């Protein structure tokens, strides 16, 4: 993707490149701010889920019905967390795209030769988290594992 773009940029006048760089910078700022807002939302939902999980753990010690009520709320928070993380991935990809464009334009203006490994490294570092583990699996694993163990212990390993 980046080589053809680089070649196209290389044919542009400096004035056009300046204008394009400015536009991508503006877009980069917009998406960086939007991403920051979404990260805050994810953190807040994470905390809420953690609190609910801890509450359900305590409730399990005295009342399974009460733990069920809390688990019902956890279900909604988990869904909101999945939505927020999915949107975050889209914001991140847009932020990366504009950052890449700014870098390529600056390289062209500075007469730097196109280096595919540099672009690959940028992409690897930006998206490593989204490649190494899926949003769904990282989000869903381990949230209730402890709770389940406690419940198994509480119920003597049986079902109620």
């Amino acid at each position, binding site marked *: 993707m980046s080589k053809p773009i680089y070649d196209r940029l290389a044919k542009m006048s400096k004035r056009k490149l300046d204008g394009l760089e400015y536009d991508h910078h503006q877009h980069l700022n917009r998406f960086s701010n939007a991403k920051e807002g979404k990260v805050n939302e994810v953190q807040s939902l994470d905390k809420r889920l953690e609190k609910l999980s801890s509450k359900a753990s305590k409730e399990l010690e005295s009342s399974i019905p009460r733990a069920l009520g809390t688990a019902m709320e956890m279900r909604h928070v988990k869904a909101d967390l999945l939505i927020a993380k999915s949107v975050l*991935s889209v914001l991140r990809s847009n932020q990366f795209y504009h950052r890449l464009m700014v870098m390529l334009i600056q390289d062209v203006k500075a007469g730097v030769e196109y280096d595919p490994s540099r672009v690959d490294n940028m992409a690897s570092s930006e998206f490593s988290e989204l*490649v190494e583990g899926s949003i769904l699996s990282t989000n869903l694993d381990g949230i209730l594992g402890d709770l389940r163990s406690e419940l198994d212990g509480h119920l003597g390993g049986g079902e109620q």
Partner: protein
Amino acid sequence: MISWFNRSRIRSYVKLSTRKQNKMKQEVDLRHSEQRSILDSRLSNARDCARKADRLQKRGKDAKAKEEINSFKLELASSQPVLNAYVNTALEKQLLEVMAVEGFTFPDVLNDLRSDIDYGLFSVNATDELDALLSAEVNPFDELGIEI
């Protein structure tokens, strides 16, 4: 490859006039708000049933407690389709908001760089798949090992 971004409704949104975009966004916002309200109401009812069951159980009224647990189960079952619809609408609502940001680019432009990026629920193919995924994954009760 990134299924949500291949949907014609989503692809065509960026080409619509501002008036049509606003109209579409209003419809989605309204649907989202209605679904959220129903979901909150079911959650509240379910929690009430759980609290009642707890009180009755502590007083030794097991039969009545069981009835409340059954009501809880009903609220839980009835909320699943609403939760699925809510997630679908919330994804669309938030995606439209992101697409309205000046400079938005569909993520598939990056496919040549990294084809293995996980876009979470946006990678899920169809409504049926989303329903199945949510039923299985956003369900603390199965995770807890409780068959209510």
